Structures are given as structure tokens and as C-alpha cells.
């Protein structure tokens, strides 16, 4: 058993350095309406090194998509409000950029792939047009050159270039998603945000898309934030993992850290709820209960009501962050107690 390193929560955690393509510090995003306020993202900090793939895991409603949108400063303005924090992309704070700067950054420095390919493409423009538009916005070139690049991108994602003149409805779901990827990559972004890009696709296509992502990382050294709720995908392509719950990052570490040396009860619950292929007759073990109402988050740990290790203290007091190593930390006050551990076995 490794030594527990106990530290109180400190502000900006990210290891400093120009190595980071993305640094999020103390980000809080809320959705404010007449009736209520949704606390979507609560004081999170994370970083991403150049050429790295960070997996962002969590259930629906955990705040993953909102975080990604915040990176592009695209959180819909009424009703979304960025209450605090900074997001540095390659050193520049996205939240402080002017509209013009944002327009230049989006699509060329930072790109996003959205979840549902069926609705992400504009039905009245050709696929080639939609890719070329991105190129023309960000690079100084002629229409013909842009279109040429569009065709190249299509080939890159495995679609015959002749199909550039076709419309989205003429493509299947998997191919549509590949078009979306082509659009996102057209201007060779430094940072690629992928919001559950394979959720809407069937498994074989999923595999193709993931292979494509890995290729990109190798060939172009694209840094990625990969949002998903599928642990299998994380295992396949991510270097580091951050687990989100109710708007907070409750565990973060390298792939090994999180999978083999799981520390947070929630993460443990996620692994436990996976069906065991070796033991088909075993009962499924879902995490009991539901994620709390984001308009009424508790003062203490948001996971406490569902946590098998929760104590009264967990419910009342805000959680502290505890580091296990340079790369691995968890947001759970029970680790204050020496000797506390969860049931999941560690695998070295």
C-alpha cells in the first residue's frame, strides 16, 4: 500500500509550465433562470499537456459538456453564466477574449466534436461546403483551395472525396460523425474537444472512429479532451482520466491510477456497475439512487447519499482534495482518516 499524502485543498493545482495546452482554474458555471439556478460546474481545475488525451468521465448531467462548452466560451448566454475561473488555452484566457478573438480561436485553435451527428450538420449545405467554410474562415486562401482541403479532410476520415458535393441526409450516422470530425480537424486545431462522439454510433463504427482519434494523436500530436460515460473507451485511448460528479472533479489521475488504483467510492461504483463478462449470472450492481438535483446541491459531498462509505461528516462538510501522487488525487474527506480504503482491489 502506498503512502497517503495528505494535503488540504490548495488553489491552482496544475503543474506550471508551457507544456500545458489547456489549464482550467477554479471554473464555476451556473445556469440562472427566473425560478432556479443550476450549479452545473463547481470550482473545477484541470490541465492537459500537449499531445495528451484526457478522458472526462461521468454520468449525464455531471457537467462534462458544460465544461467543454466553457472552453470554447460557448455556454449559451442566457441562461448560462460563468461565475468565476479562468481557462487558458496555450497561455491565453479564453474567458477574457473579445468576440473577434474568440471567432478566430474557435475552429482553428480549439475545435469541438458534438455528441449527436444526426443534428450537428446543417441540412441545407453540402458536406464539402461545411468543411470548406471552416478553412475559409481561418486561413487565407481561395475558395478552390478551401474546397480542396475539404476533400482532403474527407479522405483523412475515410470518406471518398467525390462525396463532398453531397448533403448530410445522404450519409449514414457513422459517416456523418466522420464529417463532423473532418470539420473539426480542417484547420489542424491544437486542442480537440470530443463530446461523446461515439455514443450515437454502433460498436463497429465506434471502433473505427476511435482508431481515427488515435491516428490523429500520433500523426498530428493533437491534444484532446475526450468526454464519455463509457469506461471501455477511456481504457482504449486516454492517457489521463478525470471523473466528474455533480459539477466537480472527484478523482483525477493517469489511466493506471484511476483504473488500477481507484480511490473514490464513486469511481469504484462505476467499475462495479460494469457487467462481468466472466460471470454472466452475477447480479448487476448499479449505484443506488440518482445524481442530486443540480439546483439543490448539498453543502457536503454530493455523492454522500449514495455512498456506501459515507459518514455524517461527509454529508455536512465540503470535501477536501487529497493527493496520492503527482498525478493522482481524489476529492473525499474520508481519506483524512488514516487507514481508510475502499473495497476495490489495487492492481499494481
Amino acid at each position, binding site marked *: 500500500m502506498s503512502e497517503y499524502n495528505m494535503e488540504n485543498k490548495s488553489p491552482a493545482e496544475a503543474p506550471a509550465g508551457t507544456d500545458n495546452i489547456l489549464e482550467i482554474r477554479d471554473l464555476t458555471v451556473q445556469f440562472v433562470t427566473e425560478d432556479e439556478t443550476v450549479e452545473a460546474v463547481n470550482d473545477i481545475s484541470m490541465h492537459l499537456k500537449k499531445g495528451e488525451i484526457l478522458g472526462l468521465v461521468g454520468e449525464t448531467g455531471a457537467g462534462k459538456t458544460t465544461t467543454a462548452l466553457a472552453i*470554447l466560451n*460557448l455556454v449559451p448566454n442566457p441562461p448560462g453564466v460563468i461565475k468565476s475561473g479562468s481557462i487558458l488555452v496555450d497561455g491565453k484566457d479564453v474567458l477574457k477574449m473579445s*468576440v473577434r478573438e*474568440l*471567432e*478566430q*480561436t*474557435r*475552429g*482553428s485553435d480549439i*475545435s*469541438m466534436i*458534438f455528441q*449527436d451527428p444526426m*443534428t*450537428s*450538420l*446543417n*441540412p*441545407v*449545405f*453540402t458536406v464539402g461546403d461545411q468543411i470548406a*467554410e*471552416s478553412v475559409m*474562415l*481561418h486561413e487565407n486562401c481561395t475558395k478552390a483551395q478551401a474546397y480542396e482541403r475539404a476533400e482532403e479532410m474527407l479522405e483523412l476520415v475515410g470518406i471518398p472525396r467525390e462525396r463532398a458535393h453531397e*448533403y448530410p*441526409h*445522404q450519409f449514414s450516422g457513422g459517416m456523418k460523425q466522420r464529417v*463532423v470530425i473532418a*470539420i473539426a480537424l480542417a484547420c489542424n486545431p491544437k486542442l480537440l474537444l470530443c463530446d461523446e462522439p461515439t455514443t450515437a454510433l454502433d460498436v463497429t463504427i465506434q471502433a473505427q472512429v476511435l482508431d481515427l482519434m488515435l491516428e490523429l494523436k500520433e500523426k498530428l500530436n493533437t491534444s484532446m479532451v475526450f468526454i464519455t460515460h463509457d469506461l471501455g473507451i477511456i481504457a482504449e485511448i486516454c492517457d489521463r482520466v478525470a471523473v466528474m460528479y455533480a459539477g466537480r472533479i472527484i478523482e483525477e489521475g493517469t489511466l493506471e491510477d484511476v483504473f488500477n488504483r481507484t480511490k473514490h467510492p464513486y469511481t469504484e461504483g462505476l467499475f462495479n456497475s460494469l457487467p462481468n463478462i466472466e460471470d454472466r449470472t452475477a447480479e448487476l450492481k448499479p449505484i443506488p439512487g440518482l445524481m442530486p438535483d443540480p439546483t439543490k446541491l448539498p453543502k457536503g459531498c454530493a455523492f454522500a447519499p449514495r455512498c456506501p462509505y459515507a459518514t455524517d461528516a461527509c454529508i455536512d462538510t465540503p470535501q477536501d482534495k487529497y493527493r496520492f501522487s503527482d498525478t493522482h488525487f481524489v476529492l473525499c474527506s474520508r481519506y483524512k482518516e488514516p487507514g481508510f480504503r475502499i473495497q476495490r482491489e489495487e492492481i499494481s
Partner: protein
Amino acid sequence: MHRYIIKRVLMLIPIILGVSFIVFFMMDMAEGNALDLIGLEYSEEKLAELYRQYGYDRSVFYRYFLYMKNLLHGSLGQSIIYKKDVWELYMQRLPATLKLASASVLVAVVLSIPLGIKAATTHGSLVDNTSMVVSIVGLSMPNYWLGLMLAVLFAQKLHWLPSSGDLNGIKSLILPAITVGTGLMATMTRTTRSSMLDVIRQDYLRTARAKGVPEKVVINKHALRNALIPIITVVGTEMGKALGGAVVTENVFAWPGVGRLIIDSVNQRDTAVVTGCIILTAVLISIVQLIVDILYAFVDPRLRAQYSAPRKKKAKAAPPAAPERRAAA
């Protein structure tokens, strides 16, 4: 595409038959007879001869049969009152009506589409609420009253614009076009607004913004193109209304169009003119609707497939069906 057009043209035939049947019988049932009105012009024998010629000595079915016989030979008959071919009369008046209808639709489109877009993008704001109120007020005004009031203000009091006739080119078109246009504006603004509101929620706009497309372009290019279909539908319907219903405005402004011809002929029981003009108006409106439907294909590539698809493959793509035009009323 061609097959589709031919199919639509063929569908006109039952409409022409039906319309002619209904109108002819209604006119015939009305009390009075055009021949009686001008009877004094003719000698007794001549009158009797005319009676026979037009079939007034026989049943209404015989008269209809004569009418249809004529129609099949390509003729719409003759006006008893004006003593001219119905076709000629119609063609004489049509340009004025077309001018008015087009100008009105133009006024309405130019004003209502930007307004509708603005209302949608600033949902809930003062502009939005005001434009909705203005729309509903415009819809509620009897447009001949608006015409009268405008005429009083601009023609009589301010002497800026003429108030009758078609003699001064564009100037005399202004008041009538605004009068008719205001009524059209209401529906167009509301449709533009609601169509844009639907489109604004769509994911592909988010994709466009994530690409770095400036907001203005997102709205005016990415969103508007998709919102166009219901808008075009409404423009088509309103154009139809303008063509058929500018009747009252033509009266107010003494505009020499088809509407007045029809009303005068109804009053004079000039059956052939009424039947012929209404048939032609119906055909004209159908042509406008056909043009609208073809325009859909240009705007929405999903519909293009539906039009030119050979019969079997029709079920393949699942694009939005060409919208139920009337439900939009």
C-alpha cells in the same frame, strides 16, 4: 422534376372543372340575367335570338353544356355586357392586378422578414413583443379601412400621393400596395418569427459557432436558410390571397384590376365573365403555388430528392414533407 411538374399541372384539371361547375351554377341561379340588363339595346327579335344563342330558352344544364363545349375549344366565352371575349377582358385587367399583388408581397416581405428575424433572435425583448402586437393589429384591420385612412392622410391632407387609378406609375402603386401589404405582413412576420425560433434551437448552429462563424452569419446564413421553408409557404399563400382578395382594395383605390371586373360582373349577372375570371384566378393561384413548391426544392436539398426520385425509391430519405400549406393559416 419534370414529371412532378406535369403531375401538378394535370391536377389543375379537376379544379378547373369543379370551380367552373360551382361558379356557373351559382351565377345562373342568381336572380336576373345579363341579357335583361342590356335588353333595351336590342330589338325584340335580336334579343330573342340572343336568348337562344346563350341557351336561356333551355335549362341551366344546357347552358353549362354550351359553356363547357366552348371551354374545350379553348374559349371562355363572351361578355354579354362588354361584348368582348372574356379572355381579352381578363388580360386587359390582369397586369394591374399582378402589379398590385407583386408590389404588396414585396412590401410585406421586405418589412416582415427582417422584423421576424429580429423578433426571434431577441426573443422576449421589446422588439419581439412590439412586433407581435403590431402584427396582430395589422391582421385585425379591415384593409379597405386602412386604405381609406391612408388615402385621406397622404392623398388628401398631404397631397403626397395619388389615391386612385393606375396613372402615375410607381406613385399610385404605393398606397394600395401598403394597404394590401400590411395585411400580409402580419402573417409573414409571425411565421418568420416562429420558424426562426424553431431553427435557432438547432444543434447545427452550435456547430457553426464552434467553427468560429460570426454570429451574424450564423443567423443570416445558417439559420435563415433552414427557416425559409415555412416562410416561403406563407409568401405563396399570401400572394394567393393578394391575387384573389385584393378585390376590396381595388375598389377603394379605383384600381383597374381583375377584382373590380369580377364584382361588376357579378352585379350585372354576366355569367361568362365571372366564371371565366374566377377560373383564371384559380389557375393563377395554382401556378403560384407550383412555383412555391419548386422553390422548396432549391432551398431544401432533402426535398429535391423527393421530387426527382423515381417512384420506388420515394420512401428512402426521410426529409420533412412539403409542409401542409393550409394548416399554416
